[in-house]
């Protein structure tokens, strides 16, 4: 087996482990830190089902962002929806047989790459052009955008410029599942694409990219507006009460 194949395979195993464990750790942490007070941003739903809908609107349509800034909303939608379609299309490399919906999404998924890249470039441009956004931008914000743009460009190029040996790539990925390594095509664009994706997966749980998880745990969005009807007390706060009573 070539050095390249083994290296990339090892990188992918490591990245997948860090990604999964990192996210699980974050979820565990967010889930176990109590929210001692009812702080839903109102008007807020008064039922759990209402909260589910609110979170769905937030995650699927970026409701609050829409209220805030239409241009930013359009760029964010371009990027995230583009990325979602691209990722969905990528399932064809991971699943055998390929489900029909994935096959049907193939043409959309291919061109969604451009929406994704366009959105990213727009978001990046804001960091230079708007003085307020320039002020809050750290070097890591530029680097993450660069990383995502490069992933998008390298990926799009393997589809639209120099075709990669898809069959061999799929065999390599399938081999990863069963720890039965198959040779990875030595296409430089593909290798760059894969390395960048692995880097993204590794930094994901430790960076602002985690906002995807955080939004579900945001107390201003996920709490039910019923403080008068239902008493809400965190464990550490209950201890204050018990100390006094004992």
């Amino acid at each position, binding site marked *: 087996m070539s050095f390249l194949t083994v290296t990339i395979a090892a990188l992918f195993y490591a990245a997948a482990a860090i990604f999964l464990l990192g996210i699980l750790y974050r979820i565990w942490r967010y889930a176990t830190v109590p929210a001692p007070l009812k702080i839903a941003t*109102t008007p807020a739903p008064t039922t759990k089902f209402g909260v589910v809908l609110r979170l769905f609107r937030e995650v699927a349509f970026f409701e609050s962002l829409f209220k805030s800034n239409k241009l930013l909303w359009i760029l964010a939608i371009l990027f995230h929806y583009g990325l979602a379609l691209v990722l969905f299309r990528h399932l064809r490399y991971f699943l055998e047989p390929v489900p029909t919906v994935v096959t049907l999404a193939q043409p959309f998924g291919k061109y969604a790459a451009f929406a994704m890249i366009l959105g990213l470039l727009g978001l990046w441009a804001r960091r230079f052009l708007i003085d307020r956004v320039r002020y*809050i931008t750290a070097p890591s914000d530029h680097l993450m955008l660069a990383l995502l743009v490069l992933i998008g460009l390298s990926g799009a190029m393997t589809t639209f410029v120099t075709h990669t040996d898809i069959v061999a790539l799929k065999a390599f990925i399938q081999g990863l599942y069963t720890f039965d390594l198959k040779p990875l095509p030595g296409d430089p664009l593909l290798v760059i694409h894969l390395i960048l994706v692995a880097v993204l997966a590794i930094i994901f749980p430790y960076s*602002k990219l985690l906002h995807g998880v955080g939004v579900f745990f945001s107390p201003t969005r996920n709490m039910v507006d019923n403080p008068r009807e239902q008493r809400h007390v965190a464990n550490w706060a209950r201890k204050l009460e018990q100390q006094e009573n004992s």
Partner: protein
Amino acid sequence: MAKTNFEVPEITGVTEVPKIQPDSMAHLETFRAKPDFMEALGFPGEMPENWKEKAIEAMGDLLKKYRSFQVFLDACVKCGACTDKCHYFLGTADPKNMPVARQDLLRKVYRRYFTLAGKFFPKLVGAIDLTEEVLHDWYNYYHQCSQCRRCSVFCPYGIDTAEISMAAREIMDRIGVGDKYCNEIIGKVFRIGNNLGLPEPALADTLEGLEEDVYDDTGVKVRYPLDEKGAEILLVTPSADFFAEPHVDGLMGYGKVFHEAGVSWTLSSYASEAANFGMFIGSYENMRRVSLRIRKAALDLGVKRIVFGECGHAWRVAYAFLNTLAGPFDFLDPNYPVPQHICEFTWNEIQKGTLKFDKSANDDMVVTFHDSCNVARATRMGDKPGGQFEIPRNVIKAVCNNYVDMPEGTIREATFCCGGGGGLLTDDLMELRVKGAKPRMDALKAATDEHGVTHMAAICAICKSQFTKVIPYYGFDMDQIVSVHQLVSNAIILTGQGENDEDEESAEDAA
């Protein structure tokens, strides 16, 4: 107009987003609390030698206690959606008054001490060590946030700068760095019973005076009872209602409504304060201690219901936190929410038809309504989401013929803070208060130019005090600010009102 050592912004009716002017408000530092006042709240009086370690330790403690703090520090992607939403940024142009930048003052330190990236690559992710300069920025800029939650409406993750601001103040208090205004006031509540330090005899005197005023005015004996055991309702209201203008006119209105509704009620000299500044300093323990006073007063007086007067952040603590902090309230009448807002009470009575109004009594005004930030974005009234917007408007419309709203985007959930909330209603922050009021003043000007608005009604003691002080800077008159229940008080027809006049007239006729 008062003399100023700063430039009062010009209002046009439309609030433009300014170009950033770094550090334009860096000079503004509110007075610090003296050691005695810090210690009274359970905080160290002076900064300890190892204050940095203590501050980081406090931050670690809050990260374990408040999910909001942990999630909000992690989730921000610096998208900039909030950057043009804060009234203090819009009024001062200081970029550290942009919500994300205000959060970053703390987030940068969090990253340095609590995240892998910040430990190993601080420059890359903008993480910094805690230094005296950083602490100085914390103190100045976390006392330039009124915890109004406008940013949290527009943040795609619901990040609420108020939560960060409260945590920052708590961290600073724990290393002996507290602000004078909030901490002295909390001390007064513990010692005397209210923010203004009014003792029981002064309260009794004031209420007696109110009874006389209402009697002179209407010929009807409306009672303003204090510490009456066995009353049905305990009214908890901000202490400014006892003497400040236009607050006291609102208090007169509450009394008239209770009188006409035929319910017995009382104020408490022990819990003679609705406000809870424990929230402003982010201290769960102090907020709880203040809240427990209300529970004790309700138990001692044997009341069945608790009603809160017009006060914004007080209503937040009452509506959203009181049950948590001082509940359960199973000793009260389960047929009513605990607590109730006076606007909920009045609106219920209006719907029942127990109140009679002469709306023409308010015909000299064209009224608009300022949604108080904490009522709008942290509470509810009635059963339905958004009742906090509708019910006060319904009450106003029931007693006034001329009502108009200010422009969209400046009211309801997008309302602008008055500029004095969150523990900033102190003269040493006057520059911030004036500049922070600019977006609201722009909206008021727009409504004035377009609809001839003459008065702005509010349901918050801080809003009323802030506006009466600040609107003269913008060419308005302080009398233009009214309490919602002042409007009710003007229009309500008390049972028996006018009868005496007729008696007098007929007596005169007979003579």
